[in-house]
């Protein structure tokens, strides 16, 4: 991929599509998606308009945490193909102008990883100190448990080595010990392996938890940032133009630290924004969105927030207040089966009660608020979920390509699929699938393609500043994005009823608003408040032109 100052910031202009290779397309009819299958669907993704694919873990793994429990960092799980298959896919993606982000789980491995098997075998094994061991389980007291629904402690007893090991996630995912320089060097070597193959970026999972210290909450420690800085330095020196994306589920002020002075992560997810988008639409009040963004600190010029609506995990409600969490549970997860680990394990469309207008509104917000947007696979056609599948598997069901055999995902026997398809009359593959939506120019899929096209037509969205307008009608969220001399006014009706709003646009007096989808002219902005009326959940994007 070309580098150069502007290209070096390619991640700012990215539209990221997140998927698990297992879910996408099965080329060998074993019921599991694979890399050759994914490669066959690259045209679809290119046509959709995305330009980056983020792959969930595909490494050899016992799959007790959907691949985040890695047993071999330098191979492909045989379910998904071979390393050669991956390389072929990568080349095909690059040929279409699509970059690829892969997961890199730095914090922990599977307990089946040879490193851990060695580490636990004896106390004087060379890899003993690659993990965090203790004779007692009383160190790092008070540190919160992340997987509350399944874990009672961050320490697990190992009967083999007759001592405890530290794990911030599942007990079968022992934490690596980054106080040991060998660990860092080995993980860098792993990353180099993939960088040399050609991957464009890493999403570093669970980075706040790399280092532990007594008397702290073992999150976001200075030593953790030191590890990241070292990684970034090596990356920039040896592989300029590649990118690191942080998964740090923290408040914006704490995530800020992960950008460093432009010398840590290039991007980080804005976790607290996401539930507040959902909250704002349900409350019909812009306050949650504006407040969290006003609390979001400035980040270095070469850094970028990563925004999303839904992903493979539960919609996390860790970074909200108790009042907010209760509200979200009550409105979006009244059935307790939908709740997991302080979050909600549902997809976008079911959460929006399959209301096309609300689905569109949320995507419009995603695409027009600051940050690089991530689309979760299937959300472009409005896929549903199955909350009865356990853990977060209900949002990881096979992609629905058509209304035929196995939804077009696989030629295998349906019983052999890695997961049952969504099959109810509302969200089932017979009703919601790519083929059906490709046949209608009014489908959600077409609309999403058009939305991505409009988003990509201006760098205002990917690189611009944001100025919130504060009309008295709190149901309307309005802001101006600006990049250089280019300005776009976004106006969003968050409510289920028609709204009138008067915007103070005196700073843009004389500009002509041009609606960006239909490219129709609207009245020139003058001294008086600019009156707009919006239908339920309607949005406008206006390019403000001066002629």
């Amino acid at each position, binding site marked *: 991929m070309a580098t150069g100052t502007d290209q070096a910031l390619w991640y700012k202009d990215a539209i990221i599509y997140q998927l698990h290779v297992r879910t996408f397309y099965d080329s060998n009819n074993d019921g599991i998606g694979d890399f050759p299958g994914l490669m066959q669907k690259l045209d679809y993704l290119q046509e959709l308009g995305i330009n980056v694919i983020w792959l969930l873990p595909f490494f050899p793994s016992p799959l007790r945490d959907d691949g985040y429990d890695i047993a071999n960092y330098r191979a492909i799980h045989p379910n998904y193909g071979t390393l050669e298959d991956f390389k072929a896919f990568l080349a095909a993606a690059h040929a279409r102008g699509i970059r690829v982000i892969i997961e890199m789980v730095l914090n922990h491995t599977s307990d089946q990883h040879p490193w851990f098997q060695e580490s636990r075998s004896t106390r004087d094994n060379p890899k003993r100190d690659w993990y965090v061991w203790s004779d007692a389980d009383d160190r790092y007291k008070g540190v919160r448990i992340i997987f509350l629904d399944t874990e009672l402690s961050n320490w697990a007893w190992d009967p083999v080595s007759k001592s405890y090991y530290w794990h911030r996630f599942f007990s079968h995912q022992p934490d690596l010990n980054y106080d040991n320089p060998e660990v860092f060097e080995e993980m860098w070597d792993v990353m180099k392996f993939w960088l040399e193959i050609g991957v464009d970026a890493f999403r570093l999972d669970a980075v706040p938890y790399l280092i532990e210290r007594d008397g702290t909450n073992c999150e976001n420690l200075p030593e953790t940032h030191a590890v990241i800085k070292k990684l970034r330095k090596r990356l920039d020196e040896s592989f300029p133009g590649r990118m690191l994306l942080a998964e740090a589920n923290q*408040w914006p002020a704490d995530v800020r630290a992960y950008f460093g002075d432009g010398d840590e992560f290039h991007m980080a997810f804005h976790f607290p924004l996401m539930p507040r988008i959902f909250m704002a639409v349900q409350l019909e*009040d*812009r*306050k949650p969105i504006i407040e*969290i963004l006003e609390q979001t600190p400035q980040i270095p010029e070469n850094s970028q927030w990563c925004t999303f609506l839904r992903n493979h995990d539960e919609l996390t409600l860790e970074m909200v207040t108790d*009042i*907010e969490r209760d*509200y979200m549970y009550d409105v979006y997860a009244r059935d307790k089966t939908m709740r997991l680990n302080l979050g909600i394990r549902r997809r976008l469309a079911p959460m929006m009660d399959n209301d096309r207008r609300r689905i569109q509104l949320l995507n419009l917000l995603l695409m027009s608020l600051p940050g690089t947007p991530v689309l979760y696979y299937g959300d472009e056609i409005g896929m549903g979920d199955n909350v009865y599948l356990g853990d977060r598997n209900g949002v990881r069901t096979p992609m629905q390509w058509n209304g035929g055999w196995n939804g077009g995902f696989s030629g295998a026997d349906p019983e052999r699929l890695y997961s049952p398809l969504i099959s109810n009359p509302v969200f089932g593959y017979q009703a919601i699938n790519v083929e059906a939506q490709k046949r209608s120019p009014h489908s959600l899929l077409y609309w999403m393609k058009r939305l991505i096209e409009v988003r990509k037509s201006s760098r205002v969205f990917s690189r611009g500043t944001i100025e919130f307008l504060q*009309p008295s*009608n709190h149901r309307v969220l309005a802001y101006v994005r600006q990049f250089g001399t280019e300005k776009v006014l976004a106006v969003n009706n968050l409510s289920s009823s028609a709204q009138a709003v008067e915007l103070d646009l005196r700073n843009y007096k004389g500009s002509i608003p041009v609606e960006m989808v239909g490219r129709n002219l609207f009245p020139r902005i003058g001294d008086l408040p600019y009156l707009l009326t919006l239908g339920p959940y309607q949005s406008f994007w206006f390019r403000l032109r001066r002629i």
Partner: protein
Amino acid sequence: MAEETLLSDDFLRQLMGVGEVDLMVGIPTHNNAQTIGATVAVVEESFRQNFTRDRVVIVNVDGGSRDGTPDEVLKSITETHPSLRGLTSLRTIHRITTRYTGGPSPGGALRSILAAADLVRAKACAVISPQSPGLDTNVVKNLLQPAYRENFDFVAPLYSRHKFEGLLARLVLYPMTRALFGRGIRELHSTDFGFSGKLATQCLGEDVWGEDPVRKSPEIWMVISAIASGLNCGQTFLGPKVQPATTSGTDIVTAIRETVGALFWCLESHQDFWTRVANPEPVPTFGPDHELTTDTVRINRKRIYELFQKGVTDLSPILKTILTDQTRTEVERIAALDERNCRIENQLWVTVVLEFATAYHHNVMNRDHLLQSFVPLYRGRMYSFLAEHHSSTPDEIEKDTEKLCLEFERQKPYLLETWKAK
């Protein structure tokens, strides 16, 4: 010609911005810049604590302040942002302000508040005085919740008071309302009360806003209207009644004009109702019942006695046109007694009040003068009460009040008879 409208364009625009709400707090002001900020802060905090998920608005209606009161309403930033973590409230808490027309008056202010409540379709509303030193978040909650969650239409306050405070309510307003309208509302006249959106819309539609009693004591008319319409009325305990430090207290003549006058006017306007009410019903109370305290206070009883005596003497010709000969003679006899023996007992007192009401109804004289001439007689009753109860316990006072209520009920047929007489 276009009809004059209650709402200015600016106010309407602000209401449009607010949209539909669940709860509204109206704060009428006139030169309250010193205290309005704190009032708004308490209301907002109450919204945050008690009505987290509800759509809310604070509406300030101003009578033409010259001290910048409306600016203070909009300026008061009450969210303290204790940390950068999370929100201070789920929803936008709107604050809007408008100047109502017609000069400062409680009726003008309330009418604008009702109009706002109607347009934003508030389910429950409260009116809060900007000069309530005892205001805390529970006061706001206790005024709103009965209407919002329990389907009450009018919510009157209940206070903990000194046994010698609020005597106009105890000796006239409460027992008379209970006997005649069938509901014993303890604090008929108050600057803090709650009501439902339904009642707001109903009252807004009445053509009474030009009437003097409604301009001066609109809440008395409002609660009587609610009772007469068969709507649910309740009372809610708000804690101690704390008087604002800066006010010297309304003089007794004004107080009687505005309260007794309003009640007499309501008797007229709702005679179809109270003339048919048989037995009083209890008024549901939220929280503890009202309380009486018995701290030692200094009251110049002698002065009250002297004013009673002088008033009866000076107004004798006027009292002839208001009271029956028998009643007037008895009043004059008691006024001539020494301090130790001067007592207007319940029976005579109720007769006096009812004859005044009848005289008001029959327009025997200018109503304002009539109400002024009631003042010395009220002082006589007040003196009697203070003398009789100077060392009474709260229970004893309540028992006496109950007797007074029963006396009003007993004499209701007398009122009916004289009311209808030509």
